[in-house]
């Protein structure tokens, strides 16, 4: 048991990002049983361990999802003020994505059992499998697979046999500027994305007032 725990932590330490503030691009492929073709999308993301994540899709639709550390989450579409995202699904996705991107090993090993899948020929580690411990989580998420190469990191969320999402992150770079400045540099000076990430309470109040 002790060995397993040490192994899980060490493995994750090596696999997960070591930096706290970075941005990059992503490509997402979602497979749903009912759909004849997988859903392809791509965009940019920004992660700041002190604030949260901006997940901005620019193809085929323009839309952002912001998961904040303040437990307030938003969806911001082009030309809209934004919508508060409530509920278990968003809360859990936020918690999991932030742990994965921030390399929160303690949180991840609490929720998941970590398995290493090595290449049988080279015996080198190729893939890391995260298996949910909780029966409740297992109902919505079967496993997470992490694949890492020198240039990119792939995350494969397998909900069940019929639903899965593969995310590839690439062109990852650490912040070159102060956090908010970096955000505005990436999304534009008047972007609501940065306001949502760094001033979530203010935006949430504005949304509620408008309602």
């Amino acid at each position, binding site marked *: 048991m002790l060995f397993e725990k040490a192994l899980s932590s060490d493995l994750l330490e090596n696999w997960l990002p070591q930096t706290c503030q970075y941005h990059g691009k992503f490509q*997402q492929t*979602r497979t749903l049983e009912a759909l004849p073709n997988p859903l392809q999308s791509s965009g940019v993301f920004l992660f700041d361990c002190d604030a949260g994540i901006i997940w901005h899709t620019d193809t085929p639709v323009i839309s952002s*999802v912001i998961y904040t550390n303040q437990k307030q989450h938003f969806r911001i579409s082009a030309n809209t003020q934004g919508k508060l995202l409530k*509920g278990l*699904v968003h809360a859990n996705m936020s918690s*999991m*994505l932030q742990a994965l991107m921030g390399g929160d090993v303690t949180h991840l090993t609490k929720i998941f059992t970590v398995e290493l899948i090595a290449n049988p020929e080279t015996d080198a580690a190729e893939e890391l499998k995260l298996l949910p411990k909780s029966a*409740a989580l297992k109902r919505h998420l079967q496993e997470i697979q992490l694949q890492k190469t020198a240039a990119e990191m792939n995350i494969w969320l397998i909900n069940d046999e019929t639903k899965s*999402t593969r995310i590839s992150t690439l062109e990852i770079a650490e912040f070159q500027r102060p956090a908010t400045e970096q955000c505005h540099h990436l999304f534009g000076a008047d972007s609501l994305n940065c306001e949502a990430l760094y001033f979530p309470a203010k935006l949430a109040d504005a949304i509620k007032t408008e309602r």
Partner: protein
Amino acid sequence: MNQPVKASKVTLTGFFGLLLILVLFFISQSGRSLAIDTNLKDLSPQLTEDKALQHAVAKLSSAIENRFTILITGPDQSAVDLAAQKFAEGLSAVNGVTTAVGEEAVSQEIVEQLSSQRFGLLTRSQRITIEENSQDELVEIATENLYQPSGGVGFLPIDKDPFGWFTEYLTELVDEPTLTDSSESFAAIHVTLERGGLETSVQENLQRVLSQFESDIHTTYPKTQVLRSGVFFFAAEAARTAKKDITTISSISIVAIVVLLLLTFFSLRPLLLPFVSVATGIAFAFAVTYWIYGSIHILTIVFGASLIGIIIDYSLHYFYCHSDQASSNTHAGLINAMKLSLISSVIGYGALGFSELVSLQKIAVFSCAGLIAAWITVLTTAPRLIGKKITINPRFLPPVVDYLKGITNAIARWPKSLFTAVGIVLLIQVVNGVVGNDDPRVFFNPPADLIDQERAVAERLTKVEPGRYFVVRGDDENMLFERLDALYQRIPENALLSIASWLSSPAEQQQNYQLQGPLFETDGAIAKFMQSIGLDAKPLIAEYKQHQGRVLSAYDLFENPSGTLPPLMIEHEKQIFAFVLIKDVSQFDPDQIDTWRIEGVDYIDIASMSSNALKNQREASIRFLLLAFVLVGMTLYVRYRSWPKLLMLVVPGASIATTLLVISLFGNGITLFHSMALFLVLGLGMDYVIFVSELHNEKHITLQAVFLSAVTSLLSFGLLSTSTIPVVHAFGITVLIGNGLNLIGAMIYAGRLEAQTNGSVYE
């Protein structure tokens, strides 16, 4: 020579009658286990006069009593889940027990029923979205949702719920725990009992099973901890304590009385009559109570154990009147005294029956039946059981009684004016110094460990206030939902939990359905969106059309939900009642509720309502006590045809006044149970003065009999006062003080009678 006289025909008939009842009772109960009830509700008065509301409150209480939660915690989620699964499987194997593992507030069954009516279910924000956006905009929003990180993941496949609205509906409205950052994992097992959560047999069996499983879990998963939460555990603990008290009180009571009798009479023969009368009295009391109420309350048994000290009095007086120290003509006086004593005791105990508290009514029935049966038994069997004369040990009680007499006789010689002055001072002190205490919490003394576990579970799970909720009623579901809406407008939605948290009214379900009509047209938003991702919308549109006119009844959904929830809705006498449970009481001010009364909405605060009801009961009990004094006074007048004889009432009266004062000064105020115990002080006090008065010519033996009777009663009630059950303690301490004073009063009365006879009293 004073030979025991044979029993009259009436007494014999009564004796055989009660024997017959006993035989019939035990035959009818053979092969069945006796239902011993531990319902703490019996200690609380009715909270409301409204019968329909009473029914609704009782239904909810019963559901809460038959549910409890076991929470398994530990550092590792897998171990916790496995332990919870093992625990639940084991519990489910117990007859009449169902379990649900997980943190869900509603069961999968309810989610499935809701999904079948999903076209009528929309959240407020979904309705606004439909109203404020064009169909093209709705398609755009749905597309954005689909590509976001959590898109397409939901309770239903995308071809059944393309906009993800049903998933959003459930996750927005149902308050479920999220993945926590804490280092601790936990899993909840929600247990529902088919019935009998407050019956001792069910409790004992289940407690044994739970302890066994807990021990197994600790062995297999040493790092896990098992926490318990629910009324069930408090009731079980109360029953365990009460049982322990019964065993202790009855054992010590019996041993002490046997020792007293042996020391007093120096023979085993006098043990026979008390034994037979106590056995018959208690068995008859048990049978009658059981027949009337269908079960026997654990508190009734505790008080029953103390009845031994009173029942035995008849035997003791019989012994003394047929002892070597009695003259030959005491039998007639004894019978008169016993008759009068029985009447006054039955008045005293019977007055408890006027209480609205079921527990006190049961005690009244139990005690009256026991006293009557014991009385008949003594008169019927004594002539045969006593045989030859009883010899009294001259070196045991007589010197003690003589010593006490020395003191009380001195008081007895006080001038009447001094007695009057003392009486007035006492009365003033009572009026000024007696304070009431109607806080229902003083009646319950749950162990700290159970409270800690309850708190620990509440911190981890969404728990509702057990003693505070709203009851909303309506003639139909639409009226009910209108009133629920009115309530939700005054209190933040997330502070409450009711059918409205999951379901809309039938009318609103229809409106929601109609609102989505254009979306489900062949060229509507649904068709457009599904087409854009390569799906055929026709089956879903057909399904939508099939649902026209359908509504999901909240009553069908929530009458008996499994999982964590008690029933949220019941139907009674053509009215529908919904329970609105309170998740977070801090979000509103309960004191403000009276200022915004909504028709058909009642706020139930068990503690506050119990406090008011207890106050009313306490005040009523004092009025009944005064009535009992009047009734006993009338009985005395009928017997003696003399006004001065009514002064006999001064003995229990002064004892009661002093007891009230002492408890007010040294305790936490007079509770209902203190005031109810005063009826016994009256009954016992009258007993003593009646024997003193009736057997005045045999005062040397009468005072010994009264002293021995008082000592046996003081023993029984003194032991009750050591009980850890607050109600029992209150009863015990009141009678202990009051009856101690009764004894002194009776001896002063005897001294005064003697002084009057001798002409040595100051008038």
